[in-house]
């Protein structure tokens, strides 16, 4: 069985073969490992990888799971599942394809205007919340069609602040 998993902006191919009760053989790139697993509860999987025990904590669904191992968080999604369902709010509340504030905030600065061509990750707005300022950036390259807010405006999560027409879609 083959899985195509997305990790940040990369896709990783993982080959999986069942290998007995609660056991799998997993191949990533050139390396193969023997993995056995025990489901402890809804969020806790005990893995043994090549004999070494690891506690993995999981939340989320096929679109994106948050997996915590040894204090590090990994956001992994099934690249095929994501394609079928379209963009969705990720488990941590981030909406990768929309320009929206993660928390109720006030717009401090608008850095683009309608008609501008923007690149992916280009800063679009600065919002301020609970004494913190953050910059909201373009989720993909394209053209700014509409700016739905202005400096000083109070904004809520879910409100699309900047409409960008994606490059290649007309």
């Amino acid at each position, binding site marked *: 069985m083959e*899985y195509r*998993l997305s*990790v940040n902006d990369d896709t*990783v191919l*993982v080959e*999986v073969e069942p290998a007995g009760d609660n056991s*799998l053989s*997993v191949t*990533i790139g050139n*390396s193969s*490992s023997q*993995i056995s*697993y025990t*489901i402890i509860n*809804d*969020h*806790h*999987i005990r*893995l043994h*990888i090549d004999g070494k025990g*690891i506690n*993995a*904590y*999981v*939340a989320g*669904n*096929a679109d994106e*799971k*948050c*997996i*915590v*191992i*040894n*204090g*590090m*968080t*990994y956001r*992994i999604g*099934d690249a*095929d*599942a994501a394609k*079928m*369902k379209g963009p969705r709010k990720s*488990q*941590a*509340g981030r909406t990768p394809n929309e320009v929206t504030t*993660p*928390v*109720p905030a006030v717009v401090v600065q608008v850095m683009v205007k309608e008609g501008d061509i923007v690149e992916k990750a280009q800063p679009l707005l600065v919002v301020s*919340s*609970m*004494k*913190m*300022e*953050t*910059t909201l950036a373009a989720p993909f390259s394209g053209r700014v069609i509409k700016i739905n807010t202005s400096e000083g405006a109070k904004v809520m999560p879910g409100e699309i602040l900047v409409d960008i027409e994606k490059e290649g879609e007309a």
Partner: protein
Amino acid sequence: MFKKIVVANRGEIARRVMSTCREMDIETVAVYSDVDEKAIHVLEATEAVHLGPADPFESYLNMDKIIEAVKQTGAEAIHPGYGFLAENADFAKRCEDEGIVFIGPSSKVIKDLGDKIISRQIMSGSGVPLTPGMTESDPPRMADEADRIGYPVLIKASAGGGGKGIRVVNSRDEIEEAIKSASSEALNAFGDGTVYLEKFFEKARHIEFQILADSHGNVVHLGERECSIQRRHQKIIEETPANRMMQELRDKMGKAAVTVARASGYVNVGTVEFLVDEDDKFYFLEVNTRLQVEHPISEMITGIDIVRKQLEIASGEALNLKQDDIVCRGHAIECRVYAEDPEQGFFPSPGRIEYLKEPTGPGIRNDCGVYSGFEVPVNYDPIISKLIVHAETRDMAISRMIKALSEYVLLGVTTPIPFLIDVLKSQPFKEGNVFTDFIPRHFSEWKPGNHDLNAALAAFIVDEMTGGRKMKVSKNAVDKIPSPFQTLGNWRL
């Protein structure tokens, strides 16, 4: 001793105060806003009074409602925690007028020490070294004074805090503009545009001393704390003892802290902040007239319950501690765990805590304000918990903290735990090179590592194969009932 008190706060600090109250058989009254109906501090209180909507001005900052809660429940005192009304002199005065004990210093002391100019004036008469600068606000004279003290200098808001109303000035021609802009920022942030002048130490350490003062004239200090790992003037890692602090300097600074307390007529618990320059010369900065967020590290090394001391002092008891009775052992570190995303500039990232597994073990303490299933509100500081460790030596404390952070699982919100682990593992931190520019200097371009990525990929697959949590539908998630297309799983043609 009090029979019942109101804790006028929320989250981890309200919980922590109530914890000591329960040990002392004091009944507790929690106050809460709409979004905190099921918050842990409400669940653990004897009684709870609903204040109103989530907006702090309608709830935790609303003096009328809080005083009403005291009257309604027959409580004798209010513990204000930190933040909110803890350093509000008007609130302390109202309590005094209403015959309610405010667990903290008097309103006059809070007022005096809340004004940086007045604080400096009080200290300048007492023999406590002051940061070179002016003890009154006199903008026309600032340029000459700055020349005399030597650049760089700071224009600082008298009513200020949290990094607002401060401008660094490197030369005489920058002063006028700095005064204007610091003043206007202060006016907007604090309603008071008064500014004064102070020398700016670029490579200074912020060292603070915990003081306890009773109403019988006894004042002691519990040693120092070093809070030099900050991000945008917000502390994230604190430790005690301070790095490279010689006992001689500690004794001198401790005595100065006690002098500060006496000079200002301080009663109850407070913290005296100093700046220490590269030559180990120290200068009074300000007094924080409240219980501080990082008080647990002082509790760990001294074995003293500081909240208990607050309650005892506020109820009129004398401190049964002399300075020689206070012994500091080992090393303690605190990491603040907030619902913030270190990859998005530490922007708040609240949400529902899906799963929580706290670290445990010898010398590990987690002052936690949430639980599995709790919805972290967006309306307040997104603090989840303070993780504190205590060990024999600094090296052992660092290892203990790394281990504790690595075991701490929080699903549903993003936290800076991976960032904190990397800071603690870093060479500069291990060496104790902790100046206030630590993060911009060593961690400005931080990205999380992926040491266990293969294990994470395996976990993803196992979770998918064994059904994950797909079939669970929570009662509240009516609009999230999975459609057949979502539960069908993945397929390939």
